[in-house]
């Protein structure tokens, strides 16, 4: 299970990966980034702020110490692209309420087990006797439903467009197989309205974006066009290797220097122009946009989530189990929202590393390795450096 592996790894995880493929190439890129930044007038007044939207990028950036390689005039802002981190407490409470029903087997990805609800996490619910099982794939949940016809098997569907097709295709499979005891609790979210909400936020000064790699693999680059066209910000869709990330940062800077605002695709080896047709078809068939969806730390964002279409109501856990769906305010001491928007750095949060740690997370950003706070805590940020590392070592 996800929480079993955390402690043992922490010691070794504190060190950056010292050697990665083509270190010489990385050094050349870092040098070029420095040259470009020195040539951008704005960067002489204040650091340029580039947001990586995707949690996978956040993880990679910390693991390889990429922030530390960059000149002072280029800063990375860690965005909301970790689906576990933006899960609001109310939705966790709904999961627990469903999971505690004696007729239910509740299945979930391991990442979601430790996200705090207002009463308890799924992990605590399991300890208290609820039948909660970690599965690798929604197809495993469907297999459980086939094997346990007397139980109601619920799969907790979370994630952006990367995982959305997998639950949609599983529902279509359940329909073909005539399964009647399989349900999806759909909490899938979509990144574009959230980027828009961030761009509309008054306390934010972003100069460009690293676009998500595997969301874009499904959607293609087209949905981001508005960022360049209407908000006049450059975006480069990026791969996850350190060289990918460095090259993408360089491409964003080059756009800024040349006064261009475009959606460029550094990750073309995985991200096709049209996205993935089969995946998009399944998503469109099963899901439709919600009017709004609640995000931890960011509040309610219009059209930022999907729900199951009427035609698939018989697989919709939300209709079947009448979930409480109560809005729970984030803990007051917690500043996840400000961190998500880049208004403050994780280490500037009042409870970072004291009341809120990876072992006892208050806010969701501390739960997942893709969350900015857990990453800072584990690897130490550019500025927290030794202090956070020392603290984690003694923990």
């Amino acid at each position, binding site marked *: *299970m*996800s929480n079993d*592996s955390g402690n043992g*790894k922490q010691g070794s*995880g504190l060190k950056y*990966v010292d050697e*990665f*493929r083509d270190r010489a190439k990385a050094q050349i890129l870092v040098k070029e980034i420095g040259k470009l930044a020195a040539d951008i007038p704005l960067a002489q007044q204040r650091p340029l702020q580039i947001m990586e939207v*995707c*949690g*996978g990028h956040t*993880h*990679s950036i910390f*693991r390889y110490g990429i922030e530390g390689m960059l000149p002072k005039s280029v800063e990375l802002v860690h965005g909301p*692209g*970790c*689906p*576990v981190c933006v899960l609001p407490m109310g939705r966790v409470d709904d999961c627990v309420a469903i999971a505690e029903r004696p007729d239910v*087997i509740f299945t979930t*990805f*391991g*990442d979601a087990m430790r996200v705090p609800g207002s009463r308890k996490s799924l992990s605590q619910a399991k300890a208290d006797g609820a039948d909660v*099982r*970690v*599965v*690798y*794939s*929604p*197809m*495993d949940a469907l*297999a*459980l439903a086939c*094997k*346990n016809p007397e139980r109601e098997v619920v799969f907790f569907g979370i*994630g*952006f467009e*990367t*995982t959305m*097709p*997998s639950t949609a*295709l599983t529902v279509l*499979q359940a329909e*073909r197989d005539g399964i009647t005891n399989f349900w999806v609790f759909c909490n899938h979210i979509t990144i574009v309205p959230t980027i828009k909400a961030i761009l509309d936020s008054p306390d934010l000064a972003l100069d460009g974006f690293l676009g*998500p790699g*595997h*969301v874009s*693999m*499904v959607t293609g680059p087209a949905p981001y066009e508005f960022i360049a066209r209407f908000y006049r910000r450059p975006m480069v869709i990026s791969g*996850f*290797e*350190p060289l990918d990330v460095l090259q993408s940062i360089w491409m964003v800077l080059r756009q800024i220097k040349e006064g261009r605002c475009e959606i460029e695709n550094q990750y073309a*080896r*995985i991200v096709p122009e049209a996205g*993935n*047709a*089969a*995946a998009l078809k399944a998503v469109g068939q099963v899901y439709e946009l919600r009017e709004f969806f609640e995000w931890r730390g960011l509040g309610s964002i219009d059209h930022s989530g999907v729900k199951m279409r009427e035609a698939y109501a018989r697989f919709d856990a939300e209709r079947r189990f009448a979930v409480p769906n109560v809005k729970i305010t984030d803990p007051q001491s917690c500043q996840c929202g400000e961190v998500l928007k880049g208004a403050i750095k994780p280490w500037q949060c009042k409870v970072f590393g004291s009341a809120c740690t990876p072992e006892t997370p208050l806010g969701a950003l501390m739960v997942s*390795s*893709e969350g900015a706070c857990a990453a800072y805590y584990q690897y130490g940020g550019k500025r927290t450096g030794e202090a956070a590392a020392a603290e984690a070592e003694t923990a």
Partner: protein
Amino acid sequence: MCLGIPGRIVTIDNADDMVATVDVCGIRRKINICCVVDDEHPVASCVGDWVLVHVGFAMSRIDAEEAAETLKILEELGEAQAELETMQASEALSEAAE
């Protein structure tokens, strides 16, 4: 969840449901391949292909070099082992419920 893991398609188990057995670092499990199948790549032609697997679904066809590099970075990120453990544990859970 978001990074996926490379695997190689070994056999086609069910051409109608587009289910194949994929080898991921020596672990074999059933994967849905419908997102990498199209007119140019019919089901039967997929055996031997490297794919990027996300939560039980092949989402992208990749070349062998890309697969090796991706696996290396997943190992360095500490994600490869976690993913493989989840894969195996999940299978065990499904079978234990028999």
